[in-house]
């Protein structure tokens, strides 16, 4: 089943769900609203003609300066049919909430925790949404475009006395 046929099948089962669709290197990419995400995800997994049982990737993107600011990108693979589809869900900055896909693909658990930790996108319905990479008491979401890099001045021989005077060295 090639890309236009796949898009037609989805449009037949769930009319009007695809806000935008295009093809990238032979794979279908669909932009959906977050309200329709769960229905489309269930269709893609459980429909016998589609059978996208493998969630390959779920990640968040920060498009600073665009409305909606955040986007969650989901890559799905149907292994027996060797087909891929990519879902994109937008989330605005003041309400960065997206439905969780953990109930449909359990592997989304860790992916959503990473997107929450690094970008601050909250996944409704996630069983245990907590930080996964940063320390638990970290404030801020590091991969947002407006998060500071946290770099330190590099110490060379001409400025090292000044820098080492303020560096918190460990004593015994």
């Amino acid at each position, binding site marked *: 089943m090639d890309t236009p046929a796949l898009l037609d099948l989805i449009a037949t089962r769930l009319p009007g769900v695809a806000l935008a669709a295009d093809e990238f290197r032979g794979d279908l990419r669909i932009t959906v609203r977050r309200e329709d995400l769960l229905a489309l995800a269930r269709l893609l997994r459980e429909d016998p003609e589609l059978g996208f049982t493998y969630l390959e990737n779920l990640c968040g993107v920060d498009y600073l300066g665009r409305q909606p600011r955040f986007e969650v990108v989901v890559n799905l693979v149907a292994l027996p049919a060797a087909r891929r589809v990519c879902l994109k869900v937008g989330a605005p900055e003041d309400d960065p909430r997206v439905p969780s896909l953990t109930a449909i693909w359990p592997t989304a658990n860790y992916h959503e925790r990473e997107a929450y930790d690094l970008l601050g996108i909250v996944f409704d319905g996630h069983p245990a949404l907590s930080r996964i990479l*940063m320390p638990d008491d970290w404030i801020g979401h590091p991969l947002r475009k407006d998060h*500071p*890099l*946290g770099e*330190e001045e590099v110490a060379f021989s001409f400025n090292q006395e000044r820098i080492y005077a303020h*560096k918190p060295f*460990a*004593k015994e």
Partner: protein
Amino acid sequence: MGIEEKAGDLGVITTSLEYVVNWGRTNAMWPLLFGLACCAIEMMGAQGANYDLSRFGMELNRASPRQSDLMIVAGRVSRKMAPVVRRLYDQMPEPKWVIAMGDCAACGGVFNSYAIVQGVDEVVPVDVYVAGCPPRPEALIDGIMLLHAKVWREKISGRKEDPISLQQPLVRM
């Protein structure tokens, strides 16, 4: 070493005792099994057959900090890992030494960001810095020999010298 500090300087007895104690400490210094990142590969290479660390007394790496003397911090230390490194260092009994292996442990290396501690000397006091990304096994062995020379120079009073960086020449024993 309690008795010697209380007895004070007993002349030739103190000197011989220092010699024996330092001989024992250098010839059987057990490292903690503590490879964090890529430098661990070079540490394993140094421990292996070609560049043998067993000939320096480091036949085995102890997994428990309670049974080790030397902590070779091999690799970058993230801010999440820093309290763990400190806790392991605190659990090691005296006498203990720390080698900061590689650029990331010495100064943060290529990672100048919020996530990586800029030098493990912000967390534990370091005795020898070994530069390199990663340092070759020979460079790590050079650092270990510098540490052995530093331990040979230790006195009964137990006060440690400043950390060794590469500007100091290798001391012949």
